[in-house]
């Protein structure tokens, strides 16, 4: 890659104008984008650097005092250091700790993780299990899309070329949260399978990454758990519900086995005393 056509935006409005008028692709931490450039899979050469947009790097609660709002440019390090995230969404902190190494944690953003859309993105199961909502904005206006409707297929999202992901909103969560990543090694690893889970007494939620073309929720299994079925029964439902992939990193057989084991682990670890 010898040439890059790069502009830098100093406000969200300016960024949105440039995106509409020049059709530029935003780059945040560039940790996914540069890998794509190196492998020759990066098509757009006209880029817009949004890294300096401070407005997108805030973390806090919405006016309702309940909803957690995480700016798209928040890095993994920001998440780990945020008291409100630690308090409201501890499974996201666990996931952030397991991303790449320190350099990636300092540079990689949740917006990049979500829009890049790799099924192995480690924050994806967390937002799926949290019933999060993504906030998208363009000069045409702002819209809110439930996270679980954001992906249309393998690395396909519903975001429009002139839209920026502004923030992720998470409603308050009842019940214990958990996150488990099974990577190819102890650090700097891509997930072979990742699970985020919430033991909401009324509505337990389970999401898996790296199992299919997109992050998946397992509604049948969740229903089995909600209706008070035994964990053995729920495990059997999960086994029938998922149909994992085979790839160079792992096998379908292993993924299925471990998905079931992780569910058992979660249920055991979070069992009421």
């Amino acid at each position, binding site marked *: 890659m*010898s040439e890059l056509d790069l502009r830098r935006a100093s406000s969200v409005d300016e960024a949105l104008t440039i995106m509409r008028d020049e059709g530029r692709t935003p780059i945040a931490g560039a940790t996914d984008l540069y890998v794509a450039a190196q492998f020759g899979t990066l098509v757009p050469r006209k880029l817009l650097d949004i890294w300096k947009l401070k407005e997108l790097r805030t973390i806090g609660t919405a006016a309702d005092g309940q909803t957690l709002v995480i700016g798209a440019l928040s890095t993994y390090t920001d998440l780990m250091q945020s008291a409100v995230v630690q308090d409201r969404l501890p499974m996201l902190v666990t996931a952030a700790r397991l991303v790449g190494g320190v350099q990636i944690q300092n540079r990689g953003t949740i917006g990049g993780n979500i829009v890049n859309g790799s099924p192995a993105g480690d924050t994806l199961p967390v937002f799926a299990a949290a019933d999060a909502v993504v906030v998208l904005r363009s000069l045409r206006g702002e819209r809110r899309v439930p996270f679980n409707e954001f992906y249309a297929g393998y690395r396909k999202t519903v975001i429009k070329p002139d839209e920026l992901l502004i923030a992720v909103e998470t409603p308050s969560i009842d019940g214990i949260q958990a996150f488990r990543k099974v990577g190819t*090694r102890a650090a700097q690893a891509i997930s072979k399978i990742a699970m985020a889970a919430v033991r909401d007494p009324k509505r337990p939620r389970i999401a898996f990454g790296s199992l299919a073309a997109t992050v998946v929720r397992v509604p049948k299994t969740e229903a089995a758990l909600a209706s008070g079925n035994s964990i053995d029964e729920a495990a059997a439902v999960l086994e029938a519900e998922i149909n994992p992939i085979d790839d160079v990193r792992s096998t379908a057989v292993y993924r299925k086995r471990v998905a079931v084991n992780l569910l058992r682990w979660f249920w055991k670890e979070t069992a009421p005393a």
Partner: protein
Amino acid sequence: MKAIGKSVSRKDGIGKATGGAKYADDITFPGMIHGRTIRSTIPCGRVKSIKYDFDTTGFTICDYRDVPSKNIVDLIEKDQPFLVETEVKHMAEPIVLLAHEDKEKLHAAKVIIEYEEETPVFDPEKSTLSFKDIDIIKGDVAKALASADVIVEGTYRTGHQEHVYIETNGLIAVPEEGGYALYGSLQCPFYVIKALRCLMGSAHPNIRVIQTETGGGFGGKEEYPSMIAGHALMLAHKSGRPVKIIYDRVEDMIATTKRHPAIVKHRTGLKKDGTLVAMDIEVILDGGAYVTLTPTVLSRGCIHAAGPYRCDNVRIRGHGMFTNTPPNGAFRGFGAPQTEFAVEVHMERIAEQLKLDPVELRRKNALRAGDLTATGQTLREDTSALMVLDEAVRRTDFSRKRKEYKGTNRAIGLALFFHGAGFTGAGERNLKSKARIDLTETGVRIAVGSTEIGQGTRTMHAQIVTEALGIPYETVEVAQPDTSRVADSGPTVASRTCMVVGKILEECAEEMKEKLGGMSPADYFKKNGPLSIERMYEPPDWIIWDDKTYLGDAYATYGWGCDVIELELDPYTFEVKPIKMTAVQEFGRPIHPALARGQIEGGTAQGLGYALLENVVMRNGVMANAQLTNYVIPTTLDMPELDIVMMENPYPGGPFGAKGLGELPMDGPGPAVVNALRQLGCDVREIPATPEHIASCPKMNGSYA
């Protein structure tokens, strides 16, 4: 000046720490252009047509018809071409070379090749072509098996392994006055020269090869750089300009050599008390599509296949098989990690089957001084199998922990191993390695072809010369290996650079000391001018080896090791977490303790990667996970706590008692890990023991948790 046994500062330390050191890709020459290799995309067949689907102006293009003399990468056999003529034998085989000054244009150029495909062979057991067969016979195995109390059988497998040297392969060919200079990242400059002479013929006698600072090799830059050098040279010859070829990681992984996968079958007869009476072993290596180094890898593999054990009746048969995959080649350990994995896992299974203590079983059968090896070599006083075993067992409290961990998800396992130092059999005698020391105005300069590839060659050689000459370490320089200027000290392989080349240097220094007659090098130089001492290696005269029967003194000496690992298995994910590794190794004597420790730490990490993580996924005869993202090597977080123990038992034929060390640490981690896993009910017989593989083992079915 005392230098031996001290961790003096590295000769290459400052350059590497400050970034001043120049690697191949840091070097440019006026008018230099870039080379690219167009490779086959089928594993087996014939080239039907080649079409250049781009504007070729400004490009230099070479195919096999541009070979000046012989289209042969001259190594053991003469079967591998620099460029395919018509027959394609493996994926990623070089067919056409392109060069251009603009890298973007070069990489955008499209070459369309049509093929006639044939059916490839990927399974070495189904291959009908063997590159090399070995049959080692000691005593009468059939008879001894018939009279054994117990017979234990087993088949063990090891996979490909990629070297992952931090610097990928790279070479630059430069036209110069009357000939060519080749600069590059390589282990064996004189191997490259040999290959280039064959390529260019007698019309081009003036070629020299210069090793640039090299970011790791592990055997991976032993033979393949000859291929790349040939390509760069052909392009330079045709264009008249300097040509640089640097592989990126993907190309390096798909095209260059890997460790030979192995299938090893054991049939062992024992007395009830565990005494070995017969070992019948078959070793099958997947050689890939050309002979390259397979015969010698097979040879070392077979010689180590019976492990560090005594047994009167041994038969070891070896086959190096052809398959339609890129040739496998040299990799730290050179066949021994494969076969020692098999024998050590087999010994553990024997202990289990005979209900014997695994330590006692090994102690009873371990080689001692005076014993005969599988090739009939009588071992000398520098034999340390029992010493390393006892120390490892003692300091890890092995036997107690083994009992204590029963029923938990923690386990402890061990492996006993050895590694022959230097070339096999008559190899060192045939090699006739030379080393030279030149006097300079300020001290001396070492002039050898042995390469610094990160392991500390320059520092260690300078220490030996410092000590033998009795001059300050700072006044000893080490010349950059340039085949036109240094002595051919043989390849930098086989754990021979300290023990063999270091020994010649010690002798050169002693001779020089005598000549100096008490004067300092500087004074002598001022008074008498230049002085050079060159000597040739004399292997110990007791070494007798028969290449036909494979009997005799396989190696002048051996290093000995015992690794003990403690690990935990995650019952939900089948991930293995190494907790503590104790590596007790005897290699004569450490010349530079910090560097020696580094070799053991690094080799142990590489061995743990081989055991647990490093999985080359082959699809249609080519590596499918050819990126660092998907071919994973251990990070610091994957490494256990290390207890490195360096024991001494000097070898009289080595410099200051030193033996070879580089490869030894690679042999133990694989079997130690798998022997620990066995304690957890996991009958693993192959590596890498990935979580996927462990999950598929018998007894691991059902929800383990």
